[in-house]
């Protein structure tokens, strides 16, 4: 592998500094450089994440005591709907692939850019358009949507709130996600550097590849489904309305045919991040490379066949319930394979505890709790008891926030020195991690117990027997908010005045670390010849 130095006359701030003739905002929002587009996504995602967190905090504050009337009932419905729509469609689905995927995919495979750079920029513009339309749906018309993020019919057809605009936002965002996936698949097939064989791809790239297929093949179903809700509301078409012969169950099927695979769009890239971080801080090759790569593809394919486990109480034949319950258990296997492989990589490794590894270990803990409680709902009998209770709220926040969220924070701390060329304060980062982990568990664990006690999700108020758990949960939300504030402040301070990080502060072996930090605009001065795998760490005489 050829080491590429800084090109003569190139700026030490790499792609972050604008060329002489074009500066300012325009050089960012019209840039086709994948790294700039990735950072644009990251900025938008984090901004909207802050908005989603604020809504979550307001909800928790309202629920702190029974009978609390901080929010009116209709406002509360709107708040949990908008929290869900923002967090799912604007934050979590694009989170890692659109930001770190864009920044790193071409670097990891030794390419100049993605296959279709202009399409990539267009995807970001679509994302921005979708975000604006979503905001419009909140602040115009006769009130923000109040259906929950799932837009279940027939309520979503009959409510007078601004659902028509909100579903169009979802449609546009889906289109953006499809185009990103299409771009990534083509890039991975076509633009690998000489010597970058499929088995030398980083596991992050493998996870992006599996994710991209799900994005391409599942998202159009969501597109047509929300388009039909729009058509029912605006054009008076009757397809799901039971009053006109339609079947709301078909809506649920179509919705979950996308939205269940979508949770793998959310989690797979985080798993890829984890797979790339662990070997670096264990100073050891990843254990079971083939199985981790293969399990990403298995999750993507089997995960497309389990959607109806969201509908065990909606009315299906016993046979269908049995089949979907069985498949749900099957899809847990590849996830478990990954967990065991990560732990085996750590076993007898030379472990260096740095912030990225802490977030990674947090991911494994949170994801394991979330994954195993998912099986309780996958078991058809147990699901009848916990369906639509706080149990499921706890489960998916463990998986999505504890999993994808911590995975994203791990990625932020791992690639921060590469992207900005500076280092944050590592001790503060570690402190922030522990506060976040504590906050998450205090916030969400009581919800498991509340759910088992019978507290339904999305309810505006609750009787006194749930008061204790609700109070603890709200206190947890404050701890979590403090941890998040500390983490973002620390990263911000790192961007402003962190010490220079050098090209490879962690001693990692993937290609991006051979470049200066931040990487120059055109990436590699010459396309590298790849002669070793992504986890062959330098000073190890036993290999190569």
């Amino acid at each position, binding site marked *: 592998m050829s080491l590429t130095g800084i090109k003569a006359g190139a700026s030490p701030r790499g792609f972050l500094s604008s060329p002489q003739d074009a500066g300012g905002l325009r050089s960012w929002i019209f840039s086709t450089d994948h790294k700039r587009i990735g950072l644009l996504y990251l900025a938008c995602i984090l901004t909207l994440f802050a908005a989603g967190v604020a809504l979550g905090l307001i909800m928790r504050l309202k629920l702190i005591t029974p009978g609390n009337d901080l929010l009116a009932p209709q406002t509360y419905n709107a708040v949990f709907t908008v929290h869900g729509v923002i967090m799912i469609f604007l934050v979590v689905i694009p989170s890692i692939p659109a930001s770190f995927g864009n920044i790193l995919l071409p670097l990891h495979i030794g390419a100049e850019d993605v296959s279709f750079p202009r399409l990539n920029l267009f995807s970001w513009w679509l994302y921005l358009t979708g975000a604006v339309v979503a905001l419009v749906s909140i602040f115009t018309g006769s009130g923000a949507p109040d259906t929950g993020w799932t837009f279940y019919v027939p309520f979503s057809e009959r409510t007078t709130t601004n659902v028509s605009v909100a579903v169009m936002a979802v449609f546009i965002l889906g289109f953006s996600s499809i185009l990103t996936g299409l771009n990534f*698949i083509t890039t991975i097939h076509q633009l690998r550097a000489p010597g970058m064989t499929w088995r030398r791809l980083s596991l992050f790239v493998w996870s992006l590849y599996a994710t991209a297929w799900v994005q391409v*093949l599942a998202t*159009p*179903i969501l597109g047509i489904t929300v388009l039909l809700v729009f058509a029912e509301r605006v054009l008076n078409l009757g*397809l799901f309305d039971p009053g006109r012969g339609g079947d709301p169950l078909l809506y649920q099927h179509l919705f979950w045919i996308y939205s269940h695979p979508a949770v793998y769009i959310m989690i797979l890239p985080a798993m890829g991040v984890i797979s790339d971080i662990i070997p670096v801080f264990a100073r050891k090759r990843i254990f079971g490379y083939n199985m981790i790569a293969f399990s990403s593809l298995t999750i993507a394919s089997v995960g497309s066949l389990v959607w109806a486990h969201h509908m065990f109480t909606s009315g299906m034949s016993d046979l269908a319930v049995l089949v979907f319950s069985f498949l749900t258990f099957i899809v847990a296997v590849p996830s478990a394979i990954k967990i065991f492989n990560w732990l085996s990589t750590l076993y007898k490794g030379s472990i260096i505890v740095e912030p990225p590894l802490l977030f990674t270990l947090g991911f494994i803990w949170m994801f394991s709790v979330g994954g195993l409680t998912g099986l309780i709902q996958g078991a058809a009998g147990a699901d009848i008891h916990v369906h639509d209770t706080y149990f499921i709220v706890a489960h998916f926040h463990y998986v999505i926030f504890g999993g994808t969220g911590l995975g994203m924070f791990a990625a932020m701390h791992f690639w921060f020195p590469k992207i900005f060329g500076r280092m944050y304060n590592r001790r503060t980062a570690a402190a922030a991690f522990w506060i976040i982990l504590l906050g998450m568990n205090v916030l969400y664990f009581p919800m498991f117990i509340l759910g088992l006690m019978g507290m339904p999700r999305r309810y505006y108020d609750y009787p006194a027997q749930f008061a204790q758990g609700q109070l603890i949960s709200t206190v947890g939300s404050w701890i979590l908010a403090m941890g998040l504030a500390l983490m973002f402040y620390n990263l911000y301070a790192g961007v402003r005045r962190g010490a220079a990080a050098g090209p490879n502060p962690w001693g990692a072996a993937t290609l991006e670390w051979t470049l200066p930090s931040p990487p120059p605009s055109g990436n590699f001065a010459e396309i590298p010849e790849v002669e070793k795998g992504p986890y062959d760490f330098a000073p190890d005489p036993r290999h190569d």
Partner: protein
Amino acid sequence: MIEAHKDYAGAKLGMWLFLFTEVVLFGGLFLLYSAYLHRYHLDFHHAARNLDTFLGGANTIILITSSFFMAMSITALQLGRRGRCLGLLALTVLMALGFLANKAIEWWAKFEHGIFPGSEHLRALPQGEEIFYSLYFAMTGLHGIHVLLGVGILSFVMILVRRGRVRQEDFVILENSGLYWHLVDLIWIFLFPLFYLIT
């Protein structure tokens, strides 16, 4: 500024992936169609008798023929005969417009009979027939939008061919537009029997 690289295989791969998404997009509607056909097969049978098989059949022939011209236009450009390529593309666009005109006549006739989404007449029909017409308008409507997009895309490609941006040595944009056009054709080939023939 990095010079845009030419990657023929990449461009084709990207296009095929896009076509997959189109198939899945319509797939959702086909799924609804099959579920409702199963539930309301008698109503579907009655409602479908009101559709004009002659107009539908004519449109099928128009679209298949246009696909043939589309394929010929690509071959013409590969052989370096730009004028012929442009002529064939113009024919394709004309036939697409003919398809849309025909479709408009068909829809208009339905509207005249009081059959349009949300109409009183439709609400009075059995529920299965209302579902049939909802599907009919949704599916042929979405397909019509795709035909309209096709007219736009093919006209744009004609400009590119005229300006020499798409030429004998670099014709992947024309070829990809052709793939799109064939897909639009193919979807109609499924829509036609489902609505006009098999119920």
